[in-house]
């Protein structure tokens, strides 16, 4: 691994040089504790003092709605207009892990060119972070990164320690090598280690993810799922904000007056009512509890048996997003037999008052 140093005061200059021929996406503050990834025109808008963005970076790879084909009676012309050269700066380790998870998923058996082309054209510039009360990435072992990024910036007061993670990352450094210092001092290393130690201690949420596959199996008939089903609003917020959720729908949208269509692809959610409905009226998962079971078996069990790691990267977005406290943390804890203060537990009490 190649490691260099960059003075913080040189960051914008570096970003300016590398983003000349690409869109630079970075976190921008939109309100108290509300950040989003946005295309940056003005570097001063970049706000690195954030924990998680509302939507994960998956929206930059595959937007919530894009065109797959422009189709006519005689031709299906692939449309890759969502692909352009991009740089994502300021992305946290959990979200980088989510991208690695999606890399595996989208190349499994069949390669999805709509993801692959977008990914190939995107440079990933990670940034260190500090956990808040919702972060669970230490439990999912996604709080540090070993792959999936081109450069990774660790914040050490007035400098960044920059890990170079790929050949393309190395090319970026070479665009202006004089900005970087190759020699890390003992003091830098000490600071780096100290930061890591302190950060490790700052995590407050912990889930026993290793136990989840067996628990999902053993508690599959548990009345807990009915309680969850009663509380769930089937709004789809959890899947929208989840950095590894990738279900989608395809729509043929005719262009009026012309004998042609846009074949478009938009995010879908397994918690929505008609997710498993087929033509003719059969719906394989009519009950909300059945759809929640699908979501949680997929995240906490199925993915592990297929890819070796859960599809949860511990980002905590579902905790923030769910209006009724159904999230990876509360569901895992409840399956593990712990009492948690949640909407569905209060619901019964409030109704019987």
């Amino acid at each position, binding site marked *: 691994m190649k490691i260099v140093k960059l003075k913080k005061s040189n960051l914008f200059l570096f970003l300016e040089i590398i983003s000349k021929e690409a869109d630079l996406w970075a976190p921008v503050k939109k309100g108290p504790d509300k950040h989003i990834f946005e295309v940056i025109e003005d570097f001063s808008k970049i706000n690195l003092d954030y924990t998680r963005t509302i939507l994960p970076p998956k929206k930059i790879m595959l937007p919530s709605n894009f065109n797959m084909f422009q189709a006519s009676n005689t031709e*299906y012309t692939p449309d890759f207009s969502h692909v352009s050269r991009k740089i994502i700066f300021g992305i946290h380790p959990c979200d980088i892990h989510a991208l690695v998870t999606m890399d595996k998923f989208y190349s499994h*058996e069949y390669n*999805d060119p709509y993801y692959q082309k977008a990914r190939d054209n995107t440079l990933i510039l990670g940034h260190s972070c500090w956990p808040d009360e919702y972060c669970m990435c230490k439990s999912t072992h996604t709080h540090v990164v070993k792959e999936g990024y081109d450069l990774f910036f660790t914040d050490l007061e007035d400098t960044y320690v920059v890990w170079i993670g790929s050949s393309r990352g190395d090319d970026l450094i070479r665009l202006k090598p004089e900005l970087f210092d190759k020699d890390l001092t003992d003091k830098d290393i000490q600071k780096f280690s100290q930061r890591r130690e302190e950060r490790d201690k700052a995590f407050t949420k912990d889930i026993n993810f290793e136990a989840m596959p067996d628990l999902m199996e053993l508690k599959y008939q548990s009345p807990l799922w009915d309680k969850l089903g009663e509380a769930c609003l089937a709004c789809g917020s959890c899947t929208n904000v989840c950095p590894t959720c*990738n279900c*989608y729908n395809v729509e043929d949208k005719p262009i009026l007056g012309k004998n042609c269509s846009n074949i478009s692809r938009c995010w*879908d959610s397994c918690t929505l009512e008609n997710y498993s409905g*087929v033509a003719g009226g059969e719906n394989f998962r009519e009950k909300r509890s059945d759809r929640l079971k699908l979501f949680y078996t997929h995240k906490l069990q199925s993915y592990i048996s297929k890819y070796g790691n859960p599809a949860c990267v511990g980002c905590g977005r579902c905790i923030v997003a769910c209006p009724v406290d159904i999230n990876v943390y509360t569901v895992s804890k409840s399956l593990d037999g712990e009492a948690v203060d949640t909407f569905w537990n209060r619901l019964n009490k409030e109704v019987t008052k």
Partner: protein
Amino acid sequence: MNGENKIKAPANPFQPELARIVRTYPLTDDVKFFQIRIADMEKALSFQYQTGQFAMISVLGAGEAPFSISSTPSRPGLLEFCIRKAGTVTNALFQMKENNLIGLRGPYGNTFPVNKMKGKDIVIVMGGLGAAPLRSVLLYLLDNRDQFGRVMLLHGAKRPAEMLLREEFFSLKEREDLECYLTVDKDDTGEWPADVGLVTQLFKKLGTINPENTFSLVCGPPIMYKFVLEEILKLNIPKDQILMTLERRMKCGVGKCGHCAIDYIYTCLDGPVFTYWDVIHMRELI
């Protein structure tokens, strides 16, 4: 570290090929037969599929949906489908005429294990539209007749007018190397020349079965599975020699859109053919 991934599909697995409707005619009130050929002759001949697989068919302006292939790979070139009018895509398909163009991609999914089935006796049980996927493997068995033991077919429909491909099955009934039983729940014509009653009542006609040496293939409406499986289990056929083909919502066919997920598998990649053992140990299959 960054070696090429093994990728089996072409550049864009979502890209439909243009295909021509060669023939189409009604089978019942709401089911039509479609013979389709990929417009590009070279691609038509290189479309290699196996029994049990499905294809995605698209109609411009309506969308795309999965359909099981009813023709047999032992008769290459033309693809055949039995399609029920049930939703947006099928409604649009029913408007299409011979020589019209549609989109087609595939084949997708796993297959009936015809190699494992070699030398074995085969009991095929089909009900209603279940004839669509099972016709493919039935014709395959008949085209390679000397490679299999007894071939038995139990086919049920609600009424005579609802039996798909009646003429074809009645002519198959004439074959001496096929034990073919056709039944209707109710004969409202008074002229039905074959059995009347539920498909489960046909099992007694099969005589002695050597269960270890028998495969059973089942497809039909959800309600049929319960009763037919009971009969098959009574015959003591091993659970992993009982095969079913299942339906799910699908938007891609290549394991990406998520809709057909069941447990840790995708119906489009790891199905649609499942064994009875799969069904009882993997929740939600039927």
